[in-house]
């Protein structure tokens, strides 16, 4: 296995969509559009950095989020709570980053990266401060 720690704790996906850039951007940012494929409902006042909102699932509860970067129609970043009904300040959060790239055939390549996953038992390890050099070290020892 050649994965580094960073990759292991990050979910990354790339998707080729047969829809133009603006259309995909709308599907990722318009609350009504989001409700068609992601949560059941989005509570959100505005689409700009710093705005907080909630993704609501009838079955699972409401998950708080904060928009970190809004760069239409290429990049969108939000930070969100890992647990329902938990504020962003008190619980574990992860970062979700979307990158959109137009393709020559009129479609869009969409990249998703969710990072910052931490297992409760890993907190102690993080506090030891070794993760900065860890990636290099893991690669070295894997040779």
């Amino acid at each position, binding site marked *: 296995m050649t994965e580094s*720690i960073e990759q292991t704790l990050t979910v990354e996906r790339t998707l080729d969509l047969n*829809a133009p850039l603006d259309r995909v951007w709308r*599907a990722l940012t318009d609350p009504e559009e989001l409700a068609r494929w*992601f949560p059941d409902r989005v509570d959100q006042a505005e689409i700009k950095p710093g705005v907080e909102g909630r993704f609501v699932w009838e079955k699972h509860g409401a998950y708080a989020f904060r928009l970190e970067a809004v760069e239409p129609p290429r990049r969108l970043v939000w930070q969100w709570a890992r647990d329902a009904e938990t504020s962003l300040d008190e619980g574990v959060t992860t970062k979700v980053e979307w990158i959109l790239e137009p393709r020559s055939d009129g479609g869009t390549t969409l990249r998703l990266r969710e990072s910052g996953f931490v297992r409760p038992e890993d907190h102690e390890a993080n506090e030891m401060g070794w993760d900065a050099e860890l990636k*290099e070290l893991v690669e070295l020892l894997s040779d």
Partner: protein
Amino acid sequence: MLSVSEIANDLPITRQAVTKHLDALAAVGLVRIRRVGRERLHELDQEPLRELHKWLAPYAAEWDRRLDRLKKHLEEEL
């Protein structure tokens, strides 16, 4: 298995710093240390990384389901 010197040669930090990091990695179970004579040899233990990967799998699967719905949603209009 690699000695501290072999690892330090490829890193921009001192031998002492490398030893400290290796001890920390050994403490959390990511590195195994074996003593051969006066030398300490180190080896990566991949099992904890596999466990992390396994732990993350449900989150990845959840995104696969959501992205599948997104794709279908966008195709409905074509």
